[in-house]
């Protein structure tokens, strides 16, 4: 039961890709390049790409994951990945959810 898992705090946040980020599709997923801070990130799974692109359309990360039909068991991995993207500013918190 997922209530036994400690929910990652990021799951409840409204997020979006930073406006200066370009996503370039690749066979393994996508390259994300931030033109502002020059950081370059590999999104290593097609699901990670889909969720990244869906972020702005959903009230929370959890909602985006659910809408993209990502199995709940994988959510901790995704949350950790988005935490990393938040730290590199590839993804940012939305001011208006």
């Amino acid at each position, binding site marked *: 039961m997922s209530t036994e898992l400690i929910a990652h705090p990021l799951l409840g946040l409204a997020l979006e890709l930073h406006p200066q980020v*370009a996503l370039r599709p690749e066979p*393994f997923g996508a390259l994300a390049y931030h033109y502002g801070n020059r950081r*370059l990130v590999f999104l290593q799974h097609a699901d990670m790409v889909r969720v990244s692109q869906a972020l702005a359309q959903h009230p929370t990360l959890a909602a985006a994951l659910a809408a993209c039909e990502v199995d709940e068991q994988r959510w901790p991995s995704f949350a950790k990945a988005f935490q990393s993207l938040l730290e590199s500013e590839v993804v940012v918190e939305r001011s208006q959810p």
Partner: protein
Amino acid sequence: MSADKLVAQLKTGLDAPICLTWELTYACNLQCVHCLSSSGQRDERELSTAEAKQVLDQLRDLQVFYINIGGGEPMVRRDFFELVEYSVASGIGVKFSTNGAFIDAEKARRLAAMDYLDIQISLDGVDAVTNDAVRGAGSYDMARRAMDNLAAANFGPFKISVVVTRHNVSQLDEFKALADSYGAQLRITRLRPSGRGVDSWGDLHPTNAQQREIYDWLMAHGENVLTGDSFFHLNALGPALPGLNMCGAGRVVCLIDPIGDVYACPFVIHDEFRAGNVRDDGGFSKVWKQSDLFTSLREPQSAGACASCGAFDACQGGCMAAKFFTGLPLDGPDPECVIGGGEAALAELAAAPVAVSLKPRPAMDHTKPTRHPTPALT
């Protein structure tokens, strides 16, 4: 480990470069003794402004994120700003590498007003004596003046790029201090025996002891120091240096030269590593995706003589440019192999008189003739 998987992905090549080097011109106001492109005189076959913009259009369509512009001295081109602005407007970030001669106060202000632009000023010594011995009289002052102008114009952080030689290894701390004093970022890169470096490499390349110094210094102080990932041949000395530690040539990066030739990287301007020309049918895109050279570079490379060495995993056999221009086989040790494999291989080569004359020379030489040219050997 995870990074191995990423590196393996990159070694098979991407559908488009992540970034690339574009030498805009072979013309240059300097005559650095180690110039990787043997620059000096403009080549009359240079790409026109229109042709250059067509290349930028293709790079935009490929979603190349960033280009590293160099030369020669790129600011010598009359359309320099036009091309840089066109690139940025097309969504392609620009870093350009310059000796700073043309960055006066007015240009510095113009550059400061531009976005998505990085500048890298070349400097090979912390004082005029050390620097000018390699880059020519007045070049130190030229570079410092450019840095001062950029600072005065509030350009923000620029990069100071140093080619590490036998004569400046002892100055690494001072280089760092100089960069810090400007709020700039230090970049140190490996000297390759390329271009005019073919002839000066023997005297300029770091000694074995100095290679250890470079490695130790990077491990201790290299946190904010860029290296262009050019020191992975030193990885057998201990834990790997930060970076991908792989050769990106023809796989994730490449060179476009002033006349539109596409090479695997700026250090191998030679027919052996020429993939095609942007003027060919299909342009840059076709060369990147389908050229025989790049296709073969994206296949697994043979470790050859290094296969039984425990360090190969760490050093990847070093740099193909370093091997090629010192006459060594590509599937064998780097000439600066830290285990000593390179020295042994070079000694063997030196002992075979015929082999020495077969050492590759750069494809072209745009060096300006000197006032008193040495008589041609007949």
